[in-house]
């Protein structure tokens, strides 16, 4: 990952924060709202592999944590894990924008969006915030899953060229070529 790609990820993460603060936060169900921060590691992982996914998860998590009152670094920790898992799948060609069925990436996004808050709440509970494991967690998981499923393909289209060494060949070609 070059410095310019890290910088692009910061810009995209800040863009996601703007959408979060202006739109997602306003659309709440049962007092909770969808969290868009998981979209970035999922999209980066599926489109550019594990390295990009992990870095996107870390950058996106740190940027999101700057705007949240929850423990600083927790979103980054979970984001890295989500980016790694999605990146490994992306490297196998699963969820690819061009090679896979259109529904694969949204399905993986939904699965990640559902699991990420659970992982987040579990890690929070380990750190002493046991209230994170409440009944509203289910609503959070469903909302995050829906948001990830909806947004993963547009964000993949956005970050794919930004993370690719050669935009014409695609971000994952060097990785797949080595396998």
């Amino acid at each position: 990952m070059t410095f310019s790609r890290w910088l692009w990820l910061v810009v995209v993460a800040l863009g996601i924060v703007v959408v979060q603060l202006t739109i997602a936060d306003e659309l709440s169900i049962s007092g909770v709202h969808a969290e868009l921060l998981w979209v970035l590691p999922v999209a980066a992982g599926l489109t550019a592999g594990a390295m990009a996914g992990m870095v996107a998860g870390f950058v996106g998590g740190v940027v999101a944590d700057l705007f949240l009152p929850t423990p600083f670094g927790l979103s980054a920790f979970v984001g890295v894990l989500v980016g790694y898992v999605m990146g490994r799948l992306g490297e196998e060609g699963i969820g690819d924008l061009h090679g896979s069925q259109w529904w694969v990436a949204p399905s993986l996004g939904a699965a990640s969006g559902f699991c990420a808050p659970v992982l987040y709440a579990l890690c929070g509970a380990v750190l002493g915030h046991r209230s994170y494991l409440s009944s509203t967690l289910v609503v959070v998981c469903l909302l995050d899953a829906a948001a990830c499923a909806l947004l993963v393909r547009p964000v993949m289209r956005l970050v794919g060229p930004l993370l690719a060494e050669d935009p014409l060949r695609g971000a994952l070609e060097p990785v797949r070529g080595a396998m």
Partner: protein
Amino acid sequence: MAQARGRRRLVTLSVLLLAALTLLAIGGPFRTTASKVARAVVSPFVDVVHGVTKPIGESVAGIFNYGAVVAQNHLLAQQLGQLHQQEVAYAFQLHQLADVMALKRLPFVGTLPTVTAQTTAQNLSNFAATIEINKGTSAGVLDGMPVVGGGGLVGIVTSATSGGATVTLLTDASQSIGVTFGVGGEAYVRGQGPTRNLSMDFVAPGTPVHLGEHLFTNGLQGGLFPAGIPVGTVDGTLSGTGVVQQSISVAPLANLSNLAYVDVVLWEPGA
């Protein structure tokens, strides 16, 4: 080649996880500065997007809720008239109460100065109950100051910068408030998370607690809040045999889902 790539991947994973853990452990001071910068960067874009999306959202909501808004307006006008009437009588009672509290050397919220602040963001996280306000240390707002509004106690200032502050709501799981109820009853209420009612602790079985009863901060020495701030009403009680304390649910008096403006009480714990 593939093996080297796999090794590099695992090293990166370890380094990033370690970096995240480091931030969790010692990232506090970095967060304060970086958060200020990030907010300054994002704020103009948020304002522009809000400028477009908010009128659309409010128009749509207005179309669907027009009848309810008109009915609520009539009700508010009626309540306003009643409150004007009560205000005169209340001023006299307040004066008397302040005298009594002064005799007991307890601070009373009615006599304390406040700063009115606008809420700029609410419940940014699904896991913590907080709001952001637009008044900070430059307006005299400091960590630990109580925040009231919407009919009762809202929470406590947990982080203040020069231009704004974070208020942790009383429903947050980290909050515990000393309250008084009935005739001389003392207890603690604690938050249980953003979407749940408060829980009242340390009330012995058999202690008379009535549904709808109001709870106020007790302002005891060393307490986090001055005396007399309305906290909530008893919403439900449960007392079984063999239990050491009653299980009591308390609904916050303040409407925590609609906090456009709040008052920060310029009072520091232990003052």
